[in-house]
């Protein structure tokens, strides 16, 4: 949670909000890991937040849908909701690949 990043790197800070180990959440996390390994190797950090454990965190990032992926860094904040099954959309959404 704490933002103690060294901004020298082109760091990607990603947060995945889930609610327990639902199939959708599991799929989303697996997909995310796969894309990051492929495209952002060594430049990313994934933080998984389980709202069942920490419900108070939902308000901060305005989470409604589960699962939601939030790109905190680089700015601006982007949100991708769903199980991230469409690689193209995820990459465009995260601005990894230009649209």
């Amino acid at each position: 949670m704490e933002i103690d990043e060294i901004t020298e790197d082109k760091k990607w800070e990603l947060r995945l909000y889930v609610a327990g180990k639902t199939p959708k959440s599991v799929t989303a996390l697996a997909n995310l890991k796969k894309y990051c390994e492929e495209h952002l190797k060594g430049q990313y950090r994934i933080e998984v937040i389980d709202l069942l454990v920490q419900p108070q965190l939902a308000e901060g990032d305005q989470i409604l849908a589960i699962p939601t992926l939030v790109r905190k860094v680089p700015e601006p904040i982007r949100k991708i909701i769903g199980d991230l099954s469409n690689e193209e959309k995820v990459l465009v959404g995260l601005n990894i690949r230009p649209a």
Partner: protein
Amino acid sequence: MSITKQNKPAYPTLPKTSTGIIGLDEITEGGLPTGRPTLICGEAGCGKTLMSIEFIVRGAIEFNEPGVFVAFEEKSDELAMNVASLGFDLKKLQEEKMLRVDHVHIDRSEIEETGEYDLEGLFIRLNYAIDSIGAKRIVLDTLENLFAGLDNQAVLRTEIRRLFNWLKEKGVTAIITGEKGDGNSLTRQGLEEYVSDCVILLDHRVINQISTRRLRIIKYRGTVHGTNEYPFLIDEDGISVLPVTSLKLAKQVSTERVSTGIPALDEMLGGKGFYKGGSTLVSGTAGTGKTSISAYFANEACNRGQRCVYFAMEESPNQIIRNMRSIGVDLKKHIDAGLLQFNATRPNMYGLEMHLVAIHKVIKKFKPAVVIMDPITNFINVGSVSEVKNMLVRLIDFLQDEQITVMFTALSLNTIVNEQTDEGVSSLVDSWLLVRDIEFNGERNRGLYVMKARGMKHSNQVREFVISDDGLNLIDVYLGPDGVLTGSARKQQILLEQTGAAIHTHSIGRKDREIARKRKVLEAKIASLNSEYESVEEELNKVYLEDELRKQILEKNREEITRIRRGETATAKPTGGK
């Protein structure tokens, strides 16, 4: 017109949560269904958000039930600012853990959708918000914004259905607001399909440039409720709904009487004045003194120590106070004493219904014994005759319920037509005084008579109504050979009569004296005749006596002669014989 049952059924009925909103609890007969969602829908700006926030705030303040307000539209700061004008201090309530405002922000531009998802995040947030303060009430304002932020309609619909079920399970009383859709649909996204328990429609109509807010309960499962459209008002105290159409004619009546403040008028009304809780109409053409009569009535009520509200529709309070001072009525002192309250509004200020709501509010707050409305005629500017009549019926009903004596004044423009149709209200009121001009002999005077006075003996006379520096008074008009005389003609006639009377007494005196004189003459005559008679009688008597005397003497002489013949002495016994 639904008839409310007085005896409550023995079996348990639907539990209800009181909203604390004035009037709404009456219409819903207790409030919103406890533990179930209620939909409030209507066009933009019709008061949905306000009504729902009031539900939460009143719940927190009046019923000690914490509430969550989930704002999909406004940020919590904005919301706090918007309702601060109504005296709701959201910040304080939040600090006291009685209220939680949760702003749910959805920005389509920063959201990308890919693959399957659900709204578990929203559920978790709501759950957390509810549990953090132990909320009993929740508002989702407005849920439809979800549809603007998310694409997958199928998911949204399933999730909303799930949300409503979840809210029911959670046992919180919920309000969901929704904006009115096109055509017949109540909400844009058809939220009404999901809410089956209670649907309230708010409406904001502008007719003749005058806006009226109305409320209607479209459905309320498992309970009786008012079905009409009810007007409501948003002012500095929040929302007030007016359940105005309880048209049962089962009022309490009083035999107590209240003085009009004009002794002569009381005299005309059986000597005691109006009935308490009754309604009176004073009608007349312009300048006939209607306001003066009502000010007198108000003044009298205050003198008795009762409270009075004066609804002035035409003049400002200061104007009335000044004008009444000129006829010796000091209203200012009653205002200072807190007995009299002026309420001056132009009828065009808002619609009829709004007036009614506003009047209700003032009366409920001030609790007067006497209410004056001067004049009701101007209501015609904001509604048709039948609408005005309707409104006045409801007002009279309400006042009668509260046992408040009311006096209306009405201006009649044309004495012939309006004698019967003063806003059609003349048939509703209990008593009706008519002040009219009597034009005669080159001057205009006021005549007052009692057209009707239900349930009391009243005078059938026209009285002359005089306004002077000393106040109002009623004088018997003079009924002469030339008809009714008023004003200077009446005075003249009275003078004429006085002169006549004086002359009359004078002439009677003279006649008396003449008779006395005549009697004296006659008496003198009688005396002289009497003496004459006596002298004649004496004369006659004298003859009689002489005759008798001669007879005796003759007798004596004959006896003497006889004796002498017999030779007897004078002492010899007479032998008798005649």
